[in-house]
């Protein structure tokens, strides 16, 4: 099949050969006030001129949050930065997924990130019934049909024709040793189903990340490596303990803990110390990935941590402003 056109700014920038950066927004149980904060974060991302698009999460950890479709649209409208609309197949069957994607297309969303989604059993409504009518690979097939053929999953035509979107899948670089091969092969099924990019879970070990990227490179699909600067020790601790498959290096955890402890009661000093820890870890990390791996960009999951963008990204070209 001929390569799908780049409909989104993210995919255009990737096609133009830029090393891209994306950000992440996490709208929770919010209405207008919360949305204002999310839009503010998105505006800060745009100010960098380096972040091309902002991910909008869909009920991470299985929690019941505002549906990601509406915040994705509001961010695009009010912050004027493109969104990567995360859609988990956990909560919707093929009928609802099709309907939501049509709605998203109508509202001008251009990127879908396909996710299985953390199980409801991990979330804050544990008694709920899961859907998983389509798994993430089958959702890729649905998107392929909607974009390339203009139909729903069963082949019924969309009255107004095909939708114009790009979509990506996720992969976990922390699947190491004997667990790496099934992870890589699984992505292969999604490549078969037409994904435009791969966005990975965060990795803290540079060798693990590079090795994983080199394995994924066989598919010739742009790869965005996830990185996770942590704005507090608490977040780092939570991430280490509760996010499947991710462990934060002990030294980094201790450094963050020390930064908070040494500057207790002095907020500006504490922030500066925390930022310093992150900058010292992630600046060389990102540089090494850019220089010595086949990654096409970085997905920076620094949620509500806008002040780190400048020290992290300023050294890179401001390519994104040409796409905004």
């Amino acid at each position, binding site marked *: 099949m001929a390569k799908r056109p780049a409909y989104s700014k993210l995919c255009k920038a990737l096609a133009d050969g830029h090393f891209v950066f994306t950000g992440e927004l996490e709208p929770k149980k919010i209405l207008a006030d919360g949305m204002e904060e999310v839009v503010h974060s998105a505006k800060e991302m745009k100010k960098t001129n380096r972040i091309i698009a902002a991910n909008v999460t869909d009920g991470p950890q299985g929690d019941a949050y505002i549906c990601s479709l509406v915040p994705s649209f509001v961010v695009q409208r009010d912050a004027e930065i493109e969104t990567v609309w995360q859609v988990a197949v*956990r909560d919707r069957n*093929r009928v609802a997924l099709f309907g939501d994607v049509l709605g998203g297309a109508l509202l001008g969303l251009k990127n879908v990130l396909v*996710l*299985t989604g*953390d*199980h409801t*059993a*991990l979330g804050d409504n544990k008694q709920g019934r*899961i859907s*998983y*009518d*389509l*798994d*993430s*690979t*089958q959702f890729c*097939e649905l998107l392929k049909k909607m974009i390339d053929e203009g139909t729903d*999953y069963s082949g019924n035509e969309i009255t107004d024709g095909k939708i114009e979107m790009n979509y990506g899948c*996720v*992969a*976990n670089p*922390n*699947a190491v040793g*004997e*667990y790496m*091969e*099934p*992870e890589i*092969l*699984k992505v*292969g*099924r999604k490549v*078969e*189903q037409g994904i435009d990019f791969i966005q990975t*879970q965060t990795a803290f070990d540079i060798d693990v990340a590079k090795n994983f990227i080199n394995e994924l490179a066989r598919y010739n699909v742009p790869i965005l490596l996830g990185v996770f600067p942590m704005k507090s020790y608490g977040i780092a601790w939570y991430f280490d303990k509760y996010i*499947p*498959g991710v462990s934060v290096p002990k030294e980094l955890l201790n450094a963050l803990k020390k930064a908070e402890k040494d500057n207790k009661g002095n907020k500006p000093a504490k922030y500066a110390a925390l930022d310093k820890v992150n900058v010292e870890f992630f600046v060389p990390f990102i540089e090494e990935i850019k220089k010595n791996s086949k990654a096409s960009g970085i997905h920076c999951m620094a949620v509500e941590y806008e002040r780190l963008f400048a020290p992290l990204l300023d050294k890179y070209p401001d390519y994104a402003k040409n796409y905004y």
Partner: protein
Amino acid sequence: MIITEQKDINDIYEMIKDYNKILIAGCDGCCQPPRSINEAKVLGQLLELKAKTEGKDLKWRAITVLRQCDDRIAATTIRPFIEEYDAIVSLACGLGVVMLNKVAENIITYPAQNSMFGGVQNAGDNYFIQYCETCGSCLLGETGGICPIAGCAKHLKNGPCGGTVDGMCEVGGYTHPCAWIEIYKRLKKFNRLDLFTLYRPARDYRSSTSPAYIPINKDYTNIKEEKEEKK
């Protein structure tokens, strides 16, 4: 085997508290753990005790049925007793409860169990585990005999998902193995990763639309096509 869990004794009593004489019917069929005559007697004693604490005198009799889900066996076993009793409590799975309500239609049969799943107990294990979900589209030929529908918390046909860590599943706090990692290992052992990499399209749920039925002595798929042609 159908794995069942007994309901709370207070909940069972709540269902039958307005009756004076109840028949308690065990089942010798495939229920596990056993729900036969001994278990029926124990339940009768518990209900009698519970009634006494409420100041009531409950009369009961325990019997057992070879298989409650077989209408002929159920009818011949149950019918001689039903004139004498106000209600039946069944220790069988849901199939038995529904069947007793059918064959003894003038009195109500109440469930003493929650039917959990079709599963097995492996030698040495102190738990029952689900191996088949009777999904209507068996994949076991592609997965080395390990079922991802029953074995994966998300019923994925194209796993593993990102919720697996070192081969364990996020659901249940990494205490259960990830079915898809097990499938991968088994297929790799037989040099059949070609099956692992296969893309499996979405399930056709029409075969499991409730109430599911299959006309006997006719091929089900043909029936479906005939129906669609008629449409």
